[in-house]
């Protein structure tokens, strides 16, 4: 099964009116995840969405203070799921749909 992870970016944005307002990425490209330097952020690291082989795609999840470990557990549980269409929403702040009750927003960094 091909699983894909969906993120809309920045709760203040419309999810579909500008470049990088949302990202769908193959779950196979997920490398790692960890706390991101504040009590309220956790970063997900992916192989570059553009397949350059020399960059990374990072999604930074914003969440309740001190909830990084719970967010990582919830994200892993969601990624372990096997929905029929393979479509897994990790964070969609534009519609308030999240895989974890602690996540509130998402940001995209393309390096």
């Amino acid at each position, binding site marked *: 099964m091909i699983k894909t992870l969906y993120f809309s970016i920045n709760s203040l944005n419309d999810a579909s009116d500008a470049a990088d307002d949302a990202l769908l990425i193959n*779950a*196979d490209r*997920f*490398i*790692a*995840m*960890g*706390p*991101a*330097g*504040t*009590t*309220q952020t956790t*970063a997900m*690291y*992916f*192989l*570059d969405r553009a397949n350059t*082989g*020399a*960059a*990374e*795609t990072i999604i930074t999840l914003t969440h*309740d*203070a*001190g*909830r*990084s*470990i719970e967010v*990582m*557990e919830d994200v*892993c*549980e969601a*990624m*372990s799921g096997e929905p029929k269409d393979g479509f897994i929403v990790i964070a969609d702040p534009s519609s308030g749909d999240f895989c974890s009750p602690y996540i509130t927003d998402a940001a995209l960094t393309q*390096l």
Partner: protein
Amino acid sequence: MRDKYLYFGLNAAGTEAFDDHTAQTVQLTTGFVNPIPVGTDYLANGGAKVTVTYNANHTYGTAYAGMTGEIDITAGCTIHATSALITIATAAADPVYGWTKSSTGSENDLDVTQLKPYDTGDGYVYNSKYLTGVSVAGATTTALHFQGKTGDVGATHDLDTITVTHGSAKNKEFIQELTDVIADDNKVSGMVVVRDDMRDLNLSAQNASVIASVAQTATAS
């Protein structure tokens, strides 16, 4: 075989001691963790605990009745949104969870201990799909090599290496415990803690390979 998500808690818990303390507040500094924790819910969400060494000249809320030794008074504490100043409610203000210091400073010994990770590098989940190899690093250490988080592959391949410390000559036992988890599609789902130094958790309750700690190095090409 499905991907498994392997968690390695790399940093030990941050702690800060406030011995002979004369105030009803404690100010966390970067000596606790750098950066200091932020968010008013940090304590309520279990990010850290505040403990006090019992003294008969303290006044305790009813929740602590009969307790001695190190008493967890986190329930009576609040933390400032940005400054990491922790205020402890007095027993008069909060008769259940409050605590009032002794007027003699030398009788007030408090500690704040981190319970959950938040700093960059405190811990990482790795996708088992990107476990490229496992090697014996020494009698008590085994190295797990993963594709680097930087995403650099091919000619500029980056590598993240997790080094697990375990019992002497237990390398094979550890590797087998790990592959048992990675290969098990029936019982294993979600995040699996391989080793968490902060919470002192191991891959299995039996811990046959006597896992003791874990560390990480990131190698750029």
